[in-house]
């Protein structure tokens, strides 16, 4: 069985934010909520690197471990989802998550399905939620369910440089391994020595 994973290839990420707006577009995400962000390290300095970050769909998800109402569940594909009907918006998962994935939109976010009652919102790997697949009810709360449609997360599908890869972890690893092999220990990027000194 597949175990779904994201991988962002920092050698290719150019911080174009295509993944961010693809997500906004696909799930109609309101202003103020960002299920995915691009983080740039060493901005404007030699060795500058960017990576796109969202929920990493951990195998042993800390959010799931700490949730007081046990609203998280892992699908057969290894995607970590949550039930907004159970979520109480306490923010404990925010403490636990190493990536800052959970979002707590306030009223300002438009009082949309996601922002309602201060509940948590996060990346679903485009797999919807506990409602029946491909229903309007599922879309209202979680956005589109591309996995049920047989597609992968739109952020990765639309990535401008194919830096962000999503899919079965084994296949993602194969793609990345092939790239690393091709680069052949040729990390001659300007600033590499700065980033990896020592």
């Amino acid at each position, binding site marked *: 069985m597949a175990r779904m994973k994201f991988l962002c290839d920092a050698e290719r990420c150019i*911080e174009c934010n295509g993944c961010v707006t693809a997500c906004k577009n696909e799930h109609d995400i309101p202003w103020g909520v960002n299920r995915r962000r691009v983080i740039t390290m060493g901005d404007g300095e030699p060795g500058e690197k960017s990576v796109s970050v969202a929920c990493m769909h951990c195998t042993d998800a800390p959010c799931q471990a700490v949730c007081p109402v046990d609203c998280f569940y892992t699908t057969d594909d290894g995607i970590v989802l949550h039930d907004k009907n159970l979520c109480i918006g306490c923010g404990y998962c925010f403490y636990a998550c190493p990536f800052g994935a959970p979002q707590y939109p306030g009223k300002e976010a438009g009082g949309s399905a996601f922002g309602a009652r201060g509940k948590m919102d996060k990346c679903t790997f485009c797999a919807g939620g506990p409602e029946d697949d491909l229903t309007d009810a599922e879309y209202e709360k979680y956005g589109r369910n591309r996995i049920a449609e047989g597609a992968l997360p739109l952020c990765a599908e639309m990535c401008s440089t194919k830096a962000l890869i999503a899919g079965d972890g084994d296949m993602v690893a194969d793609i990345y391994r092939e790239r690393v092999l091709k680069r052949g220990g040729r990390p001659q990027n300007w600033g590499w020595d700065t*980033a990896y000194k020592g």
Partner: protein
Amino acid sequence: MKLKRKIAPGSGARVSGLETGAGTNLFGNTVNRRTFLRNSGITAGGAAIAVAGGPGLLSKVHAAESADNRPKADLDTVKVRSVCTHCSVGCGVIAEVQNGVWTGQEPDYDSPINLGSHCAKGASVREHGHGERRLKNPMKKVNGKWEEMSWDDAVAEIGDKMLDIRNESGPDSVYWLGSAKFNNEQSYLFRKFAALWGTNNVDHQARICHSTTVAGVANTWGYGAMTNSYNDMHNSKAMFFIGSNAAEAHPVAMQHILRAKENGSKLIVVDPRFTRTAAHADQFVQMRPGSDVGVIWGLLWHVFENGWEDEEFIQQRVYGMDQIKEEVAKWNPEEVERVTGVPEATMKLAAQTMAENRPGTIVWCMGGTQHTIGNNNTRAYCAMQLALGNMGVQGGGANIFRGHDNVQGATDMCILSHSLPGYFGLSAGAWKHWSAVWDLEFDWVKNRFDPEAYEEVKGKPVSPMHRAGMPVSRWIDGVLEEKDNIAQKDNVRAMVLWGHAPNSQTRGPEMKEAMEKLDIMVVIDPYPTHSAVLPDRPDGVYLLPACTQFETYGSVTASNRSLQWRDKVIEPLGKSLPDHTIMYKFASKLGFGDELTKNIAVENDEPLIEDITREFNKGMWTIGYTGQSPERIKEHMANRHTFNTTTLKAEGGPVDGEYYGLPWPCWGTPEMKHPGTPVLYDTSKSVAEGGLNFRARFGVEREGVNLLAEGSFSAGAEIEDGYPEFSADILKNLGWWDDLTDDEKLLAEGKNWKTDRSGGIQRVAIAHGCAPFGNAKARAVVWTFPDPVPIHREPLYTSRYDLVADYPTYEDRKSHYRLPTRYGSIQATDYSGDFPLIHTSGRLVEYEGGGDESRSNPWLAELQQDMFVEINPADANDVGIKDEQMVWLESPEGSKIKVKTMVTNRVAKGVVFTPFHFGGHFQGEDLHDKYPSGAAPYVLGEATNTAMTYGYDSVTQMQETKCSLCKITAA
């Protein structure tokens, strides 16, 4: 690598939108929260319903449209193919439509250009189809307030005023400013429209984007376009970027660039800033803004010093390289470092990389073109590629990345004040050729123009019909300059800003004054634009809603010269109309509707797009826009998946052997089935298979030196040497005349390859393996330009006044494109003491152009909420300012902008950078309330060009935006 939530100091403003996701400072400082909630109707659900009942432009119908554009489980979905409307890469867009509503966007994996990918802008284009902030009705200003009106009233009222102006001041007093946002058909129709109105005062963004490229490059080897393609960069062994930040301006191109890099190609980035592109480079070369010629000659100094030039290539295919060598000899490493700031070792490494890794390509953009010596820069870049023998090969070439989605096509259709479609120029012969294509009497067309003459050429008076009109960069001077100083009857009195962001032009305060002095100003655009709010005038301003390219259809030319076809995704929103429909309405009102559409079917005021394509197919012989019939382009779109993603050649399938989008020149008639030309001047292929050589455009000899190619010719050519361009007479001399059919002979008699409307001359030349435009050398020396050999000249506002004595600018000119143009009189004063910082400008990935469209898209606007200025920590400390502080940036001309600082090492000490996409503020004042209610973009900010100064290229009137001076003080 460890992830940090709060990233490096100095990047706050860039990520303010992102940081707010955690719940603090949700709306940043730019968008007032209350205003935001009142006017936005952010997306769906409750907020949108609130908007429907609230104030604003939206009628109930529109609110319903915008309130619910989500996909529904029980509705059928239709997929429609289009092309992104943001940049020239030409990314395929797949739109999902339910019941006429654009509900989703899917990756276009079949497109060989983007392979499904999008940047932030491309991934968000669906929003333009909802357009919460779009202009939905025609409006005019009455007593300082915006009032809605009908299309009929608007066209009648505006048309009457224009006809009055025409009677009083002549046709040249109405200025038709067109757009690179038009598709090819609209671009062509617009240029024809201006011609039939009787003026050459018509222009568009290309003037202020790549005009110096088109002029410099076309005058070097024949055509002024990107020679290879984004995809072809997979074949490059070295890539040399100068003044191009592809990671932000052409993000999807980076997919091909990084693929090349992973194939082993070296990436060199030359730029004043350490850009996002530079972050991926093998070598970053930091230069002083405006010193491009010095950098290139500095590189070539090492090439010539070490004998790295391609002698055989130069001998066979280049004229004038010896004169370049003489100039380059002056640029020894010490002089290069003195002028450009680049040290010897850095320069030598770059030269060596280019020499040892061939073929190498050069990429340049606005960083090189937007200078008073822009044409010198572009020719220096060409000279570098010619010296290295990198032209006409896969993986080499001059990969000039164009800007707007159809700026290549709009340039080819010549929405330009100095030419007719296909770069025919403005000579009587050119007018006669196009009059014949239009099926109009030449005398009728001639009588549309002002018959008087205001300029002399070689002692003879020449009327405005044959003289270049004013360029878009200078229209404000056409309004403000003394009438007697202008080479036309009267000042510009009516301005039509059709798909144009005025904040992309320099000298903001003078633009405001010009807008206030006009009799009338007409804005035709999907958004109100900065034009709606800049002038303080109670009336005489009209806003007419055009729809976007997703609400109409037609062909669009990507930077690599490939034509793609957009299908209509949705019907025009509100009362907006397609541009070509608006053109027809105005032409009818102004009295030439029938002439405009003589060969074009019109239904409900909408000219048939395919008929327009077929019409330009019949006239664009110069650059081979003749083989791309609507049927052929559509067939390519339907078979996108059959094209190789590196060569762009179809492998099998219905268009086997053709190149994607039939990149021009696609010679002859559509029936000739030329496959398009993927790489210009590539002699390894026959012309019939997309091969070519340099164009014979500049004569056959100069001062006894042969200008034709020597011993170099395209594969299979029956003339195995250089030859001049083809004409009826040459066919006869060669004994090839009888290869023409009888029908072809009738039209070809007395004509040449450019004006033979049968296409026969081209067909026969190609049948004999020859290029219709001849086979010559490229010229590294353009003897018709002010500086035949490209030389360095200091900017008008230079930070290095000590260099002015050695590298002075030009003398002032009395009439350049009808206007007096200043050079030396400005440089005569040293401003560098009071204004110690170099001010340069550029792009952000989230926005495009003047930003009126992209700042109105909440998915994009959220990511960049503040106009800012990048300043080096040392400079910031020198004037006592900190990160994210409001400051005044003031120019030597007295204009100033109030912006937020971003303290960063991205810029060198002494240089500040501002992005040019902001508008809606003016010299510290927020103009939000001057927009029609509900139509202000989500994010407003100071337009950087308010504080950009005077300065224009000596050949094309390109504006200088990359190298001015400023001072910065705390606000």
